[in-house]
């Protein structure tokens, strides 16, 4: 309860963040027999269902070599985005008793929740790596593998920024949790997770790829799964138009910081 400085790099802030992530991660799957294995099983089950549907019934992915890994990449990335933003909506309000009694940097609450989702993503990526290693039709572009962490960072910034916005909005407007839930459902289909972009007209491809989440998923697929069959933003746009998803990410981040900072002053009174 010592006034913890808002400097994100101070020793105390780092200690507190570490402890909060630890708590968050522990609480997520406590009382369940297999614990955080669930965080791996959830996307894997979703993957199994969708894979069956889209190769056996709808047959969208049946012709694509390496479709399972292609699908899994999309699902894992989207799961992280969904988990981070959806769990953070109520994070500030649910920590109300803390906020009303002690002055801690409020952003730590959101960042801690996002970091514990990131740990899950890390575990998922290990599983993905195994899939890639044991699937015959995939090709890893080793020369571009170094971009993978950068893309994960972009994903983390995007998801955390949105988490900042929705969690701060939820303090005043409780409708946001429902609205965001609906938007996520729409986002699942707007983002090319299930289907290859080839099946939609070029105009739609362009539009869909402006979404940073789509850009990230496609970039990762190109590097890790199917270099030849993945359409990226760079294929449909030329310089400087293909920077749009990155600019959107940055703008969302800037707005998130501005909005969250402004709202955080009154959290103690409003939660």
């Amino acid at each position, binding site marked *: *309860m*010592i*006034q*913890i400085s808002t400097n994100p790099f101070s*020793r*105390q802030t780092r*200690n*507190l963040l*570490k*402890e*909060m992530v*630890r*708590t968050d991660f*522990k*609480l997520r799957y*406590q*009382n369940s027999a297999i614990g955080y294995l669930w965080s791996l099983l959830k996307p894997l089950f979703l993957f199994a269902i969708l894979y069956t549907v889209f190769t056996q019934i709808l047959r969208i992915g049946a012709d694509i070599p390496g479709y399972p890994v292609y699908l899994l990449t999309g699902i894992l990335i989207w799961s992280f985005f969904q988990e981070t933003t959806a769990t953070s909506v109520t994070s500030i309000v649910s920590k109300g*008793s*803390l*906020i*009303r*009694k*002690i*002055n*801690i940097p409020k952003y730590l609450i959101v960042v801690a929740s996002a970091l514990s989702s990131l740990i899950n993503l890390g575990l998922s990526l290990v599983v993905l790596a195994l899939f890639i290693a044991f699937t015959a039709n995939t090709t890893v572009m080793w020369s571009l593998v170094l971009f993978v962490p950068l893309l994960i960072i972009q994903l983390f910034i995007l998801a955390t920024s949105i988490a900042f916005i929705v969690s701060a909005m939820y303090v*005043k*407007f*409780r*409708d*946001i949790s429902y*609205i965001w839930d609906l938007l996520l459902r729409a986002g699942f289909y707007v983002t090319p997770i299930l289907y290859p972009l080839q099946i939609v007209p070029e105009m739609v491809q362009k539009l869909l790829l402006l979404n940073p989440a789509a850009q990230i998923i496609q970039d990762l697929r190109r590097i890790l799964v199917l270099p030849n069959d993945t359409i990226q933003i760079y294929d449909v746009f030329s310089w400087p138009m293909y920077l749009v998803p990155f600019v959107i990410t940055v703008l969302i981040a800037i707005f998130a910081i501005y909005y969250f900072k402004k709202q955080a*002053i*009154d959290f*103690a*009174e409003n939660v």
Partner: protein
Amino acid sequence: MSQDYAIKVENMSKEFLLPHNKKTSLKQTVIGLVKRDNTYEVQEALKDVSFEIKKGEFFGVVGRNGSGKSTLLKIMAGIYTPTRGSVKVNGTIVPFIELGVGFNPELSGRDNVFLNGALLGFSREEMEEMYDEIVEFAELERFMDQKLKNYSSGMQVRLAFSIAIRAKGDILLLDEVLAVGDKAFQEKCVDVFEKYKASNKTVILVTHSMTTVEEYCDRAMLLNKGLIHKIDNPQIIAQDYQSENKKTYLKSEAKQRDRQDKKTLESKDISIKLLNKDDKEASNFKPGETATIKISWKNPKIKNVGVALVKQTGDYIFGANTILDGFDIKNKAVSYSIKLDLGSGDYLVKAGFFGDTDQDKIDFVNDGPKIIVDSPEEQRWGGVIHLEHEWKS
């Protein structure tokens, strides 16, 4: 730059905007925007408050509920931001608005120690060093791997307190910490207070306990409805606080008595009427006039009725009952006439209802009708009761 203040508050006001109809959904907000009924009530919790707390001072903040104490403490702790004015803090603050902040019932005692420690600004390594001492001080060695939700509230407080006293800071903000816990725990608190006092730390204590204020504080502040009523030595503040409390207490007590008596009269089906010599309901009488008190009731168990006259000061003037007077009650009603040889003033009629014996109390009306005795001309005698008298020479 060396400064001798620990906290300096200048012209500080805190307002809370209380929406008349709190809007927590977008729909309500939209409707509110259209209808333009986004009205707020501005509640001023603190009004233009200025004061200074010196380094090393043990400073008490007292005041009735709603006087702004806790708001002030939360502003000093940086939880709330002041609406106007400034709060300057010279040093590190350790606020104890509540013990065990951040405690999570689903985590083990051990995990909670580390989480709470991090909130206090300690690293994991520092906490590991102190861990055994904390557990020992809390006397919870056997329970540390159990979930906190299985702790008794006393155990939780002990654990929280054991961690809290480790906190390092120059300025301590304490809010009613002493209000919880048993005698032994309070003694531990007192020891810690003594230690703080001896080590010359600045302590700001919000409390209702005047003994604590008088015993430990160097100075104290009395808040009243968001204003500083007085800053003075603890004895004077304690006196002011107590007299302020007494006033409101007496007021509310009188109100409550009124309400209660009305309730008993209505609910118990007892009627007490005060009549003058013309059999009309009245309350004003002249000295020497006869008043008739008509009492009726519904409870058939009532066998004996007593009527008493009491001065508003509580002095018992006169009382009689039917058994002692050898009067037999019929038809659940009596009429009691009394000659008011009384001095000017207000007299309260009280009535008691009994069964077969005096011990068998059935009901009591403490606030019956009021008899106002008013002399039309100047009263030529003094006192309450007019006694037959004679002068001789």
